[in-house]
C-alpha cells in the first residue's frame, strides 16, 4: 500500500464572532461558534453550540462523541475549552452491560451518557470534527442499510441502565442550523449543526443558494427519498463522482473498500447512474452510493489540497476528466460505442502530467481539482476537513467517518427537484460569478470538461433503460488502475469481495487459511491496521468468514437435566464446588480488606496492586469474585462509580504474553497479536482520557506469567502507577513469598506491599461452610460433619476437598439406603468410608494384591535394606537374596516400581 506522506498540518482554532457573554471576574468569555482551520488550506470547519462533535479518543479508531454545550475561552485566547454532553459508543459500554440492552446493539448506535464521573470539559484542541447524530424513537427500527456515517441515539446510558431518551435532548437547536450567516464571507454558506463535517462536501457540490429549510432537513436526517427526483444533472454528478473515484488510483485500501462495499450492497455505480435519472427507481441505495463516492472524494481531497499549489490547474482538470470517462464508457461499452470515441481523444495523459512524480498523485489531484472547481461556490467554503496531518491509518478512518456530510449532500441533491439537468451548468456557474477566486481559470476548464461528461452521461442515460435490467451491470467493474495496483492488494480485495457476496466463501477462506500462506491471524492483523476499511460490513449480514467468528458453544441437550429427586441429591448439588453459595462465610476479614482496597481505588479514580496468596482451596478466587459482585452491585445502585472487571488466569493461557491479548479483548473486544495488544494497552493506560471507568483486573495464578524478562508482570504492575490508568490489579498465587522468590526487584517494588494471605480453613470454618451450603437441607448428622471438617482441617484445610468428601459420603449413604437401619441421613459410617476412600493410600492394598513373585521380590528388597542399613540396594544384591528378577530397583512393571518406591518410606 503506498501512502502519500503528507507534511504535518497545524490546526488553527479561532473564535468566530463576538463573545456572547463575558464573565468579568473570571475573564472567561463564551462564544457561539469556533472556527477550525488547517494552515495552508483555505477551508474551515465551524463548530457551533449544540452541534455534535467527535473528540479524540483513546485511539484513533474510537473517538468519543459529544454534543457541544458551551464554548468558552479566556481572554488571551490561549485556552479554548468546550463543555460537552457525552455520548457513549457501543464500544464504551462494558460488554456485560450490553446484555441489558436485550438486543444486538446497532454498530452505529450511541447512547446519551448520563453517568457520573466524567469530566465534561475538554480542550477544543481535541475536537476531531463534527458528526451527525440522529435521534430515533425507542421502538423505531434502525434505518437499514442505514446511513453509514450517522450515529443513532435511542437510549440513554447512565452506566447502569438504558433509558429511552427524549429527542429534544439530542437534536441540536435548529437555530444554528438555519443560520448560514451569509454576511460573513469566510464562513461556509451553510453549516448545519450536524452537517458541519459535510460542509465541505455540501459547499462543494451544493446549490448556489442554500435553502435553509432543506439544509436543516438534511441535517436532521429526515431524508426523503421519495421526494428526490433526481435530475439528469444530478445523475451526472453522481456518475462523475463514481467514475472519478473508481478510475483513480486511490490508495489501494480505498479501492478495496469501495469494491467491497459495492459487492456487498449490490448497488454498483453503474446502476446508480442509471437509476438516478429515473426517479421511480430511486431507493436508499442512491444515497449510499453517493455518500460512498463522496467519501472517497473527501479522502483524496487532502492530497489535492497539497497538490493544488504545485500542479498547474488546467492540466489537472483536464487530465482527470479522462478517467471518469473511461469508466463510464466501459460500463456502457456494450450498448453504445459513441462515448468511447469522445473519450479516446482525451485518454492520453496531459503532457504536464509527466512532470508529476507520482502518477497516483496526479490521478487524485485532478479529480479533486475538478470536483472542487465544479461544485464550490466560493473558495473559502472549502472547510478543511482534514485538519490534521495524521498517519495514513487515521486518515482513512476519518475519511470513512466523514461520509456523514457527503451523505447529507447526496440527499440534498436528490431533494432539490427544481434543478434540472440543464440547470446544472448554471448552477455551477452561478457560485463562481459572484466570487472571484484566483482559480477561476481552472474552474472554466473544469466546467468545460464537466459539460462534456454531461453529454456523455446523457448518452448513457438513454441506454440506461435497457441496461438497468441486466444484473451484470450491477457488478462493480474494477478500473484498470485498480488492476494495476499491487497484486497482493488486488488478490486480497478480490477475495474479500468474493467472500462477501458468496456463500461458499467460508470454505474458500478456510482453505486459504489452512494453506498457511495467510493464517487467520495475519488476516486479523491487516484488518486491525485499517479497521474501517469496511464500515458497512457490520450492517449487512455476512456469513462468518473465518473460524474466529465461530461461536464457541457446546450443543445443548435434548432434554433438560433432571432435577434432584430427594434430599441427598439436593444436598449433593449444594455441596458441589461449582454451586455458588449465597454468601461466603469465614472470609469476612479478607473480604472486607479487599473490598475497601478496591472500593477506595475506584472512588479515588487511582490505581493500585494487591497480592493475594494462600494454599489452594482457601477461597481466594471466590472471595475476590464475591467482592466484585458486591462492588458491581454497589455500582449499580450508584454508591460508587462504575467500573470494568476483567479476569485472566495464568493457567488458561498458553503463553504469558497471551495475557495482553486476553486483557485487550475483554476490555475492548478487539483481537490482536500479543505485541500489538501490548502496545495498544500501553497506549490506553498511559494516555489521558476524559471519561474512563476504573478497571479492576484479576490475575489468577500469577506465577505462570513469569517470563525470563518478566516484562508481562512488569507491565501489569506498572500500568496501575500511571496517572490516567485507573487500573486496580489484584493478583492471586499460591506462594506466600512469590514476589521475593521469582520477581526481580523492579517488578516486586511495583507490586508493592499490599499483600494478603489466606490461611487454611480451621475445622470450625469448614463446618460452617458446609452448613451454610446445605442451608437447612437436613442430610448430615452433626457428628459426621464435624468429623469431616476436623479430618480435612488437620490435613490440608482445603474447602474443595471437604466438599468432595461430603459429596462422596452422600453417595455412599445412598447406596446403602437399602439397609433398614439407615436413617436416611449421612452418618459417621458413611463419612468414614468416604474418608478412607480418599485419604487412605492404596499402597498396602496394592502390595497385598500383588502376585506371589512380586511379593517375594519386595521382601527380598526389604531384607537387603535391613542388612545394609541403607535404603538403597543394587539389583545384584537383591538377586543374591532371592534369585529372581532382573534390574535394579525397577521391575518389569512400573506398578511394582511404585510399590518399591513406596516401600522405602514405610
Amino acid at each position, binding site marked *: 500500500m503506498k501512502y502519500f506522506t503528507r507534511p504535518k498540518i497545524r490546526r488553527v482554532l479561532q473564535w468566530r464572532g463576538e463573545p456572547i457573554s463575558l464573565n468579568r471576574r473570571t475573564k472567561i468569555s463564551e462564544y457561539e461558534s469556533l472556527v477550525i482551520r488547517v494552515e495552508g488550506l483555505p477551508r474551515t470547519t465551524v463548530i457551533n453550540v449544540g452541534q455534535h462533535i467527535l473528540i479524540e479518543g483513546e485511539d484513533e479508531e474510537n473517538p468519543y462523541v459529544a454534543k457541544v454545550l458551551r464554548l468558552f475561552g479566556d481572554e488571551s485566547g490561549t485556552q479554548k475549552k468546550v463543555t460537552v454532553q457525552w455520548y457513549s459508543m457501543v464500544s464504551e459500554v462494558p460488554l456485560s452491560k450490553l446484555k441489558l440492552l436485550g438486543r444486538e446493539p446497532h454498530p452505529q448506535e450511541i447512547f446519551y451518557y448520563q453517568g457520573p464521573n466524567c469530566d465534561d470539559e475538554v480542550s477544543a484542541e481535541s475536537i476531531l470534527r463534527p458528526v451527525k447524530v440522529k435521534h430515533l424513537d425507542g421502538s423505531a427500527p434502525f434505518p437499514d442499510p442505514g446511513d453509514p456515517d450517522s450515529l443513532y441515539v435511542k437510549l440513554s446510558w447512565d452506566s447502569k441502565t438504558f433509558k429511552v431518551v427524549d429527542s429534544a435532548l439530542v437534536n441540536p437547536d435548529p437555530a444554528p442550523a438555519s443560520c448560514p450567516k451569509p454576511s460573513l464571507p469566510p464562513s461556509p454558506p451553510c453549516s448545519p449543526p450536524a452537517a458541519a463535517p459535510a460542509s465541505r462536501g455540501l459547499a462543494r457540490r451544493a446549490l448556489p443558494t442554500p435553502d435553509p429549510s432543506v439544509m436543516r432537513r438534511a441535517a436532521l436526517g429526515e431524508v426523503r427519498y421519495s421526494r428526490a427526483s433526481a435530475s439528469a444533472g444530478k445523475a451526472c454528478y453522481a456518475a462523475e463522482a463514481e467514475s472519478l473515484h473508481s478510475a483513480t488510483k486511490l490508495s489501494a485500501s480505498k479501492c478495496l473498500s469501495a469494491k467491497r462495499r459495492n459487492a456487498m450492497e449490490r448497488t454498483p455505480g453503474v446502476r446508480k447512474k442509471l437509476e438516478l435519472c429515473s426517479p421511480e427507481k430511486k431507493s436508499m441505495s442512491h444515497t449510499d452510493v453517493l455518500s460512498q463516492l463522496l467519501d472517497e472524494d473527501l479522502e483524496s481531497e487532502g492530497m489535492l489540497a497539497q497538490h493544488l499549489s504545485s500542479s498547474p490547474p488546467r492540466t489537472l482538470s483536464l487530465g482527470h476528466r479522462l478517467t471518469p470517462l473511461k469508466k463510464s464508457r466501459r460500463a456502457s461499452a456494450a450498448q453504445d460505442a459513441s462515448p468511447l470515441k469522445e473519450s479516446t481523444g482525451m485518454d492520453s495523459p496531459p503532457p504536464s502530467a509527466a512532470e508529476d512524480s507520482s502518477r497516483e498523485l496526479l490521478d487524485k489531484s485532478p479529480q479533486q481539482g475538478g470536483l472542487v472547481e465544479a461544485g464550490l461556490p466560493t473558495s473559502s467554503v472549502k472547510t478543511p476537513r482534514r485538519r490534521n496531518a495524521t498517519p495514513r491509518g487515521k486518515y482513512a478512518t476519518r475519511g470513512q467517518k466523514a461520509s456523514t456530510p457527503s451523505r447529507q449532500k447526496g440527499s440534498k441533491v436528490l431533494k432539490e427537484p427544481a434543478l434540472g439537468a440543464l440547470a446544472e451548468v448554471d448552477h455551477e456557474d452561478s457560485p463562481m460569478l459572484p466570487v472571484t477566486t484566483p482559480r477561476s481559470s481552472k474552474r472554466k476548464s473544469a466546467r468545460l470538461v464537466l459539460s462534456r461528461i454531461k453529454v456523455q452521461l446523457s448518452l448513457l442515460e438513454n441506454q440506461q433503460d435497457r441496461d438497468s435490467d441486466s444484473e451484470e451491470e450491477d457488478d462493480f467493474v474494477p478500473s484498470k488502475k485498480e488492476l494495476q495496483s499491487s497484486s497482493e492488494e488486488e488478490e486480497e480485495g478480490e477475495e474479500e469481495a468474493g467472500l462477501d457476496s458468496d456463500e461458499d466463501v467460508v470454505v474458500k477462506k478456510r482453505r486459504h487459511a489452512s494453506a498457511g500462506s495467510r493464517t487467520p491471524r495475519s488476516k486479523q492483523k491487516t484488518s486491525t491496521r485499517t479497521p474501517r476499511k469496511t464500515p458497512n460490513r457490520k450492517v449487512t449480514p455476512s456469513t462468518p468468514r473465518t473460524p474466529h467468528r465461530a461461536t464457541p458453544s457446546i450443543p445443548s*441437550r435434548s432434554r433438560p437435566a433432571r432435577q434432584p429427586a430427594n434430599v441427598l441429591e439436593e444436598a449433593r448439588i449444594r455441596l458441589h464446588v461449582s454451586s455458588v453459595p449465597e454468601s461466603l462465610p469465614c472470609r469476612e476479614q479478607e473480604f472486607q480488606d479487599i473490598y475497601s482496597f478496591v472500593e477506595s481505588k475506584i472512588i479515588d479514580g487511582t490505581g493500585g496492586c494487591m497480592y493475594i496468596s494462600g494454599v489452594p482451596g482457601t477461597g481466594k478466587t471466590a472471595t475476590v469474585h464475591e467482592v466484585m459482585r458486591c462492588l458491581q452491585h454497589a455500582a449499580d445502585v450508584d454508591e460508587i462509580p462504575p467500573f470494568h472487571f476483567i479476569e485472566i488466569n495464568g493457567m488458561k493461557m498458553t503463553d504469558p504474553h497471551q495475557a495482553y491479548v486476553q486483557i485487550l479483548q475483554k476490555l475492548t473486544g478487539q483481537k490482536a497479536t500479543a505485541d500489538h495488544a501490548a502496545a495498544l494497552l500501553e497506549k490506553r493506560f498511559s494516555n489521558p482520557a476524559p471519561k474512563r471507568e476504573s478497571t479492576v483486573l484479576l490475575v489468577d495464578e500469577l506465577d505462570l506469567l513469569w517470563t525470563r524478562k518478566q516484562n508481562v508482570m512488569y507491565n501489569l504492575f506498572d500500568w496501575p502507577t500511571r496517572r490516567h490508568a485507573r487500573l486496580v490489579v489484584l493478583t492471586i498465587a499460591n506462594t506466600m513469598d512469590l514476589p521475593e522468590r521469582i520477581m526481580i526487584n523492579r517488578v516486586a517494588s511495583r507490586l508493592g506491599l499490599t499483600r494478603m494471605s489466606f490461611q487454611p480453613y480451621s475445622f470450625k470454618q469448614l463446618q460452617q461452610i458446609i452448613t451454610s451450603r446445605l442451608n437447612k437441607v437436613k442430610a448430615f448428622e452433626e457428628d459426621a460433619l464435624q468429623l469431616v471438617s476436623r479430618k480435612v482441617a488437620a490435613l490440608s484445610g482445603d474447602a474443595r476437598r471437604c466438599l468432595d468428601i461430603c459429596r462422596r459420603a452422600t453417595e455412599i449413604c445412598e447406596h446403602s439406603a437399602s439397609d433398614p437401619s439407615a436413617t436416611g441421613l449421612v452418618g459417621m459410617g458413611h463419612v468414614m468410608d468416604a474418608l478412607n476412600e480418599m485419604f487412605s*493410600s492404596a499402597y498396602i492394598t496394592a502390595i497385598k494384591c500383588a*502376585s506371589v513373585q512380586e511379593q517375594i521380590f519386595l521382601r527380598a528388597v526389604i531384607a537387603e535394606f535391613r542388612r545394609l542399613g541403607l535404603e538403597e540396594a543394587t539389583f545384584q544384591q537383591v538377586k543374591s537374596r532371592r534369585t529372581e528378577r532382573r534390574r535394579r530397583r525397577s521391575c518389569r512393571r512400573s506398578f511394582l516400581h511404585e510399590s518399591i518406591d513406596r516401600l522405602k518410606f514405610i
Partner: protein
Amino acid sequence: MSKRKVGAAHMPVGECITQVQEILRQRFCRQRVPDRPGGVEAQHKHLLGLLKRTAVHGESNSVLIVGPRGAGKTMLLKCVLRDLMEEKEVQKNLLQVHLNGLLQTDDRIALKEITRQLSLENVVGDKVFGSFSENLVFLLEALKKGDRSSSRPVLFVLDEFDLFAHHKNQTLLYNLFDVSQSAQTPIAVVGLTCRLDVLELLEKRVKSRFSHRQIHLLSSLTFPQYLERVQTQLSLPDDFPDENFAQNWNSSIKAVCEDKSVRDVLQRHFNSSKDHRTMNMLLMLCLSRVSVSKPTIKPADVLEASRMCFSDAKANMLHGEK
C-alpha cells in the same frame, strides 16, 4: 429349540472348530467387551453411578481409575459406557472425548483432538483452525457458555493419565478439572492410569481441583478363583450352535483344569502374575493347538503353551531352537 438342536447337531466338526476359534479368540484378544465385568462389580456400580449423574443430572465429576496393567481398567470403562449408553436419555445427550497420553503427547495436540471430537465450530472436516492459544480460549469459552441444566454433558476419557501430568504446566488438566469444579458445562473427567502415585504428579493447584475419587482395580484373586476364571474363559457359551459339541468341549475343559500337571503350571503362572493379559496369552497358545484332527484341549497343550510362555527368547536363540 429342538429344530435348532437337530440342525446344529449335524454341524461338521470343522465348522465347530472354526466357531470355537472365533469365539474364544475374540474373548482373548479383548475385541469384545464381556457381558459382565468379572470381580469388579462394586467399581462398576460406582463408576456407572458417577457417570450417570453427569449424564442425567449434569453434575460435574472427576475420577481416576488406577490399577496395574492388565487389571481391566479399560474393560471396566467400556462395560460402564456400554451400560450407560443403553439408556435413551444418556445416549442422546452424552458427548464423548477420548484421549490417550501416548497419542496426545502435548496440550496442543490434545486441544485439537478435543475440539475435533466435540466438533466445535472451528472445525471443518478434520481440520482444526486457529493457533494453540486461540484453540484454548475457544474451547474454554465454549465450555464456559454452557450450564448445568441446558448443555450436553461431556465425558473426557484420558487414557495413560500420568502422561498428561507431564505436559507443560498441566494446563489441560488444570482447565478440565477447573471446569469440573465450576458452574459450566457439566463434564466428567475419567483418567486411566497404572501409577498408584499419580496424584503426587499433579501440581497442588491441579490436585486441589481434582475430586480425589479414585477407583482402584486391584485384584485380590486367589488361586481357586484364578482356576475358575481359566475355566470360564475357555468354556463355550450356552448358545453355541452345536450343543453336543459344546458340552463335550466344556467337559473336556473341566477335565483339563482338574488335571494335576495343568494345575501346577497354572499355579506357576498365578504366582508370577495375576493379570488377565498373561492368562489370555497362555490360553491363546493352547487354543492355537486345537485343530479338526484334535478337537479338544489336552493337558499336554497347556504344558507346551506354558513352556513357550516362559521360554527365554535369548536362550532359545543361543540354543538354535526356532
